[in-house]
């Protein structure tokens, strides 16, 4: 673990101070940045540690969004109740879906989660209580600081959770599942229970993030709530930064989103192109993420890049 634990702490404190330093644009940028960082970290639990590549975490994000929105817009409940409902809904879904879906391996699991996302999105678009295709409008609150600090707190919680996982027996079990599930089972890991726990945890954080963000943007609809692009974004950020590490996903999210925004403001349309190219290059030259690349370059210098390609090419 990081011996320099005060570095992330300092970083968190600095981040916390931003609302009083920055202006509205910075806040807007910061809120979305924190959102994707939380989602990347949530994905990390299931995809990074357990090795189950979910392309459907946006399902739980969407459930958080809609749980909160329906509670507030249709039933006029307060925000915290709505948030709790959204989180609860996502966890319930994770428990119900988890058992059958987690029996699938590799690509089948990935596609099943993709399908789940699409199916749920289409289903919600047909429900009256969810506002069908038009969506819902939440009560307006101009309190960006609340949303910002809320998401920051959530990011801290998620990162602490991941830190705990990485040093605990539970985490060791997840990693064993990732490395070789059959061997893990034979060695005594209750793989089913562990996988579901990872899924539920991942779902919870995604949903809470969704609930907060829903309240922030005020207007939600199925397309944005279950957006598959968001899905892949969080996967890329986690993988870019370093799956299975504690700070990797956060670093990955911060870096990628910041550069994307910088490009978007200057060469707007090319920003999308940038994402695509970054992903392609990253998969070829740093498939294990930034953290691993850092170690590799320190050990071998630029030759590490060549070694990586040599290892994975046909």
């Amino acid at each position, binding site marked *: 673990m990081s011996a320099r634990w005060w570095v992330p702490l300092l970083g968190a404190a600095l981040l916390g101070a931003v609302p009083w330093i920055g202006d509205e644009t910075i806040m807007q940028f910061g809120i979305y940045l924190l959102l994707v960082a939380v989602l990347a970290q949530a994905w990390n639990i299931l995809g990074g540690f357990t090795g189950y590549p979910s392309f459907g975490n946006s399902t739980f994000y969407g459930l958080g969004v809609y749980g909160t929105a329906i509670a507030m817009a249709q039933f006029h409940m307060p925000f915290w109740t709505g948030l709790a409902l959204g989180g609860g809904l996502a966890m319930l879904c994770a428990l119900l879906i988890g058992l*059958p879906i987690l029996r699938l391996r590799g690509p089948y699991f990935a596609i*099943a989660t993709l*399908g789940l996302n699409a*199916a749920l999105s289409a289903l919600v678009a*047909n429900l009256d209580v969810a506002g069908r295709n038009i969506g819902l409008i939440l009560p307006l609150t101009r309190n960006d600081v609340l949303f910002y600090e809320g998401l920051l707190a959530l990011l801290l919680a998620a990162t602490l959770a991941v830190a705990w996982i990485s040093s605990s027996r539970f985490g060791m079990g997840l990693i064993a599942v990732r490395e070789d599930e059959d061997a893990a089972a034979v060695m005594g890991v209750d793989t089913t229970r562990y996988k579901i726990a990872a899924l539920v945890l991942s779902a919870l954080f995604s949903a809470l993030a969704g609930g907060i963000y829903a309240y922030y943007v005020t207007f939600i609809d199925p397309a944005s709530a279950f957006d598959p692009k968001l899905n892949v974004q969080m996967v890329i950020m986690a*993988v870019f930064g370093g799956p299975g590490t504690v700070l990797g996903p956060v670093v990955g999210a911060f870096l990628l989103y910041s550069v994307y925004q910088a490009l978007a403001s200057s060469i707007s349309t090319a920003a999308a192109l940038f994402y695509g190219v970054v*992903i392609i290059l990253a*998969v070829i030259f740093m498939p294990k993420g930034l953290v691993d690349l850092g170690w590799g370059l320190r050990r071998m210098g630029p030759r590490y890049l060549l070694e990586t390609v040599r*290892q994975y090419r*046909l």
Partner: protein
Amino acid sequence: MLFAQILVNGVLLGGLYGLMALGMALVWGVLNIVNLAHGALIMLGGYAVYFLFTGAGIDPFAALPVAMGGMFCFGYLLQRLLLNLIVRSALLNTLLITFGLDVVLTYLAQLAFSADFRAINPSYAGANVTLAGITVPLARLAAFAVALLLAGLLWLLLNRTRLGRAIRATAQNLVAARLYGVEPRRLYAVTFGIGAALAGAAGGLYGVVAQITPYVGTSLTAKSFVIAIIGGLDNPLAVVVGGLVIGIAESAAALYLGPTYTDVISFGLLVLILVARPARSLRMA
């Protein structure tokens, strides 16, 4: 009568869907690459046929082989120069890199072709044939026929030619295939090329029966997934059947539940089938 019409609509649509999925299933089964840019390849094929039609006046069905040839070369190079670099990496990485590719291709297409809707409208586009009270659009019927033809040709290729044997051998066991003289890099590139050519053909046909924009790719990729899973990666003809299943299900859902439910049905089916039959490890062999 209505039921029969739905059935026919579904079958005609399903044939085309099956063709779309064919390329993805082939690449997945042989190269173990789940190509998230598959829809983008379909889209590009559609544009190729569109420009051959509007630019050079070639009938879309006649332009298909040309478009397929172009897509084959494109796919070959893509695999040879790019995808071969990560083939032995974790599967998640193939998903990510093809997603990145999808983003790049979609963006470039939008840059080159603008986001306008394009339809390929040959003179016979609106013509119908009525059989026993059922309306059968001629264009759709022709597309269906071509889809079946290509599926059949793929089956012949895989099962009756030397190349097909090499492809199947590689799908089973790359190491053993090498011992028999198969050059994997080229073979992988050829296989991907064939997949791209099939996608291109599907795109061209899609342009005749519907409209294309740079963004159609994403939902078509998803649909191809569903069908590839249902049909399995074993047999081209089974993939077509999978396409028919989805086509009919969508057609029926559109009528009985409403057009907004088609996605729920397709993807709900996908999840159900995956979960009900988890132990499928299949190859196009």
